[in-house]
């Protein structure tokens, strides 16, 4: 098992090196003079010089690169000139909000996605199957920010059931948290529900045709045990591998969902950074989120090997 963990981490090293290099290069793609863009046309030469200095652009590229990696080793992703804070600090402050929203969305995704996928597989080619797959298609096709806006129009503006936006921490007021995060979590989850339902359905259909399921049926096991114990346990393994994709989609989705619902999470931090041309924040936030995902993917790899002995022994 230890070897599996080590191998996953070693495999991620080149990816991390390239990801950090690409993020560094991204800032150098800004066309023209950044300081002129940031300072505005009225800025003086001294002001522009100061902006360049703050961004570290007054030095040769190789020095900038060394400083960038030196900073990364100290978990320093640069400084947001707009917020007057370290990017790392600003991101960590917002992380609990995004995390609680994503977790809520993940719970919705897992329950709805797996249940509708299994129902569709068990009732293959019936109306249940068709309804579940129609729902999945709508899920993968619906723009999540639009769904959010439509829910606000219906449930907040017309019916007045839920607040239009804002965030209440769970520790302060659990009911308030639920009221403020339910619509965002649903609009965030729908895409992933669609994907998961499709994948669950196809793996479940695959598993139901296996010999061990037939054997379980033949020895007279009741249906719920065949499904619950034999089929589902084996169908879960491929499903675990898509968790990484689901989390990645949820991170992207959170940026726009948090903006729609005015939730002060990492996503909103990034959108306000875009509007303020806060390049260090965009750069640092992008890298932070991506490295977090690389970590989650390592965890998924390890979980996969742990759940499936075939993988563990074949390569380990």
């Amino acid at each position, binding site marked *: 098992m230890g070897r599996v963990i080590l191998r996953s981490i070693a495999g991620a090293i080149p*990816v991390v090196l*390239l990801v950090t290099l690409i993020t560094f290069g*991204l800032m150098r793609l800004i066309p023209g003079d950044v300081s002129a863009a940031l300072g505005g046309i009225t800025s003086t030469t001294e002001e522009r010089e100061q902006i360049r200095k703050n961004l570290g652009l007054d030095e040769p590229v190789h020095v900038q690169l060394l400083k960038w990696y030196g900073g990364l080793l100290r978990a320093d992703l640069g400084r947001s000139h707009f917020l007057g804070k370290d990017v790392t600090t600003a991101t960590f402050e917002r992380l609990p909000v995004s995390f609680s929203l994503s977790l809520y969305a993940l719970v919705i995704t897992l329950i709805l996605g797996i249940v509708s996928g299994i129902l569709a597989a068990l009732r293959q080619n019936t109306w249940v199957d068709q309804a579940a797959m129609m729902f999945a298609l709508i899920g993968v096709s619906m723009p999540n*920010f639009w769904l959010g806006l439509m829910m606000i129009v219906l449930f907040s503006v017309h019916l007045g059931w839920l607040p239009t936006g804002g965030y209440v921490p769970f520790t302060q007021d659990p009911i308030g948290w639920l009221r403020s995060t339910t619509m965002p979590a649903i609009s965030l989850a729908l895409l992933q529900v669609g994907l998961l339902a499709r994948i669950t359905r196809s793996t479940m259909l695959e598993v139901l045709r296996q010999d061990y399921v037939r054997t379980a049926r033949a020895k007279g096991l009741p249906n719920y045990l065949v499904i619950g114990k034999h089929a589902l346990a084996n169908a879960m393994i491929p499903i675990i591998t898509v968790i990484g994709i689901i989390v990645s989609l949820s991170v992207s989705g959170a*940026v*726009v969902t948090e903006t729609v619902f005015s939730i002060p999470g990492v996503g909103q931090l990034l959108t306000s950074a875009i509007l303020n041309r806060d390049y260090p924040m965009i750069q640092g936030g992008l890298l932070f989120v991506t490295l977090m*995902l690389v970590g989650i993917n390592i965890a998924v790899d390890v979980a996969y090997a742990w759940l499936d002995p075939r993988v563990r022994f074949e390569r380990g």
Partner: protein
Amino acid sequence: MADSAVAFDEAVAAAAEPERRSARWDTLRRLWRHRSFKFGLALFAIIVAAAVLAPWISPVSPNKLQMRLRFEPPSWDHPFGTDNLGRSQLARVVYGAQLSLFIGTMVVLVNAVFGTLIGALAGYFKQLDNALMRINDAIMAFPAVLLAIGVAAVLGRSTPNMILALSIVYIPRTARIVRSSVIVVSQMEYVQAAVAAGAGHWRILRRHILPNSMAPLLVQLSFLFAYAVLTEATLSFLGLGAEPPAPTWGNIMSEGRQYMREAPWIITIPGAALAITVMALNLLGDGLRDVLDPRLKIQQ
């Protein structure tokens, strides 16, 4: 040597021609019989028609301000209503379809060219594979929409920059699919036969490997079209698309958002158009996958 390879190819091609033609017909027939493919095609045709016929559907310019007609709800005179500046929403939505489809088409074309090139090089030349796929993996490690946001934010808002940002994000995903089918096809006996007949790398790739690896690419491109349209709208909504007043669906929703209490139609209709477009492309992709690429087929 090369001459004999050409002669060999031509002989094989001539012998296979009738069969190939009937296989092509068979594929088209099966696509036509695929229910969701047909439905997706019909929906997509409606959107394309709306975009192409925009000047006839709406003689009014999408940017014409009519201050006396602010916030008109949908009616016979203004089928999709008007916005805070009295602009015709019908005009903005159909011209928005033009922009969305243009950006989607460009991203698909750029991906078809560069994705195929990179994927074919990586899949065929083992020496290049490692380096190219490492870079691919690194780009794919970024969440797609976030990377597009980063690139678009850095480059500045414009339609060409949007196409560039979306291409950077999606080319590695396309290249990976081409690469894996190129690897499979390279193992085929007819490729070995071509090598034995003395055909060069370029000829083998162009004539034998690529034509036989196109099915997964075609499936990928139709889904890619859907992602590109959706991501473009998302970025426009966040203020990273073409500069206003350009009527992209994302821009319309971004501007209309503050009036959603008094004029909900401003955000409802472009969003619905976007959802229908994405759904049509997803249905097309599902149909193509079922018919062209049975390996990927979701169990039926």
